[in-house]
């Protein structure tokens, strides 16, 4: 069932390429956030969109969607380096991530390595009975690769999530609930292409394999099993 779902997602992801792609003879590397292709120093890319996942049922007991406003950005620096980041929020969870990547290209292929740090703030004191606030810090080493076609770019990014600190507060009690542990990893597959006039679109899926999904921090997960759950995203580069 899972394999079938994944194949379906990949097939459906490819569908808009035929309908939306604007034929082009030149490869445009500069408008994309997920590609590993180095940006020129000072060049920046910003994407605004949304992400959606269905939380693992063992945690939630019922299929529970977790949407999030999702912003990505990337800024080129000298020596083929760039800083990249993400910010997202769905009110209950707000996160900010920033990291440094070094990358290089050979022909249409690009490869990069990087590391980023994420801070997450969770607050559901306004939900009756939950009364919980969380702060989480995590480090994400990553490798990325991409291939640029004339009309679009396909990118993959593999990240490992290393949780350095997770502190929860309920009412008058604060407890460190997890620290210094590998929480899991993710593989992000993204397709980026022109969409409309000067607007470009990035869309894809992040295949998460995680013990403690950040989208479900308030569920006090206790399972040691790592669970698989995909997260879809779409963003528009203005």
């Amino acid at each position, binding site marked *: 069932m899972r394999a079938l779902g994944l194949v379906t997602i990949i097939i459906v992801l490819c569908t808009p390429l035929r309908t939306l792609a604007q034929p082009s003879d030149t490869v445009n590397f500069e408008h994309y956030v997920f590609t590993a292709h180095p940006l020129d120093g000072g060049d920046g890319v910003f994407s605004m969109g949304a992400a*959606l996942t269905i939380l693992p049922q063992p945690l939630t*007991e019922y299929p529970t969607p977790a949407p999030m406003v999702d912003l990505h950005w990337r800024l080129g620096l000298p020596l083929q380096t760039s800083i990249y980041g993400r910010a997202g929020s769905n009110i209950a969870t707000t996160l900010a991530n920033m990291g440094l990547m070094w990358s290089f290209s050979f022909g249409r292929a690009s490869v990069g390595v990087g590391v980023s740090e994420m801070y997450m703030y969770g607050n559901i004191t306004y939900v009756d009975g939950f009364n919980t606030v969380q702060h989480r810090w995590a480090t994400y080493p990553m490798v990325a690769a991409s291939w640029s076609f004339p009309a679009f770019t396909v990118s993959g990014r593999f990240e490992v999530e290393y949780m350095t600190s997770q502190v929860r507060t309920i009412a008058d009690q604060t407890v460190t609930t997890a620290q210094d542990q590998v929480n899991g990893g993710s593989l992000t597959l993204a397709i980026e292409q022109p969409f409309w006039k000067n607007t470009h679109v990035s869309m894809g899926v992040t295949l998460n394999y995680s013990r403690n999904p950040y989208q479900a921090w308030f569920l006090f997960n206790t399972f040691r*099993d790592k669970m698989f759950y995909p997260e879809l995203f779409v963003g528009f580069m203005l």
Partner: protein
Amino acid sequence: MKNITLVLAALVLCLNGCVSELTPVVYPTVDYETVISTTTPLTLEQRAQMNGIYIMQEGRSTFGDTVAVRWDGEAMSIYTVKSVSFFYVRGGMRTDSARFVGYWRAVQGPETGEVSLGILASEGGKELAEGKGNGVGLTLRGTITSPGSSRPNTLVLKKIKALANRTRGFEIIGHRGGGRNSDRLGKSENSIELMLFASQLGATACEIDVYGTSDGVPVVFHDPTFTPRTVQGAYLLGDISNYSLRQIRGFVRLVNGEQLPTLEEALMEVVDKSTIRTIWLDNKDSRVVDEILAIHQRVMDHAASKKRTIRILFGIPTTEIYDAYMKSPLKGTAPVLCELDQASVRASNAAVWAPRFTDGLQSDVVAQMHKEGRDVYCWTMDDPGFILRFLTEGDFDGFCTNYPTLLAALFYTRKDLK
């Protein structure tokens, strides 16, 4: 744009099918009979002698430094904080030594394996056989198998002291009868089988959920509807209150194949076949409040006839149940557990107040409740950090938990309980 909408809709539909399930647990098959038939059962005194806090001399990388060992009926359990594991072993004495076999399970993951333990005559077996001493120094020695390990690992535990306790007493309350279906205990949540096994998991009490059928029979079930999470196959759809007991009996089996129990069946079985001392009825259907109270009366009469001490608490989790209880002609016939505010606790003359743990320690209110002669149970405590904090800094009389094993390990091995 229409294409994108269709694409996104298809993707969302696919998402749910992609989310993973937990790894199934394959419990080992243990040959209890061979050991039981060649040993003599321990007496109650010998079992009490064995109960205690043990240090792990070998095996601490998996199970930590100290563990709790506790007999319940014919089986001995071991509870560990590290790995959150329970051991279920059976066996007995062979002259001046002892032999036990069983299995262990890490309840927050899929790990399980076989256990073989013994007590040598020179390591406390002789004293145990003679019923001398308090068991301190007694050594359990043996092996366990583990997933991914080709040969058994050595396990050595030595008793250092008696189990910790609390002056006012303390209830380790197994949520949904002892654990959730997602905990993969091999017995379904809210099944009679799980309630009877709960004490081996470390529970001294059970919280169970009560709904009513269309013909007004209180049954033990957590959700208002039948879903694949709780039952095998989706033969009945929609609300449980739409179906009669006969229809449910004909078409519903819990996820591990058990029959969905009526409240009366479940309570009678717990009275007759378990050592559980408190049952918390989490009532979710105001239509059957009178029936539940009548069942309580019958079960307590049955318990009295068997000289069985048990407390069955009529739970009031919502204002609907509160209103129905206050209007019931059987009001006052059962001890009440109230989850609502203090005014409702007093108005219903509840024996127990049960706040959420996310409301904090509430030490002043807890002290006031104790002063009024009421117990205070907190729910639902699963995080070891919060459990420890609430055990050491709070003054609660019990916690409801999905992991009675974890709570038992933390409670029995703590040094600084009030």
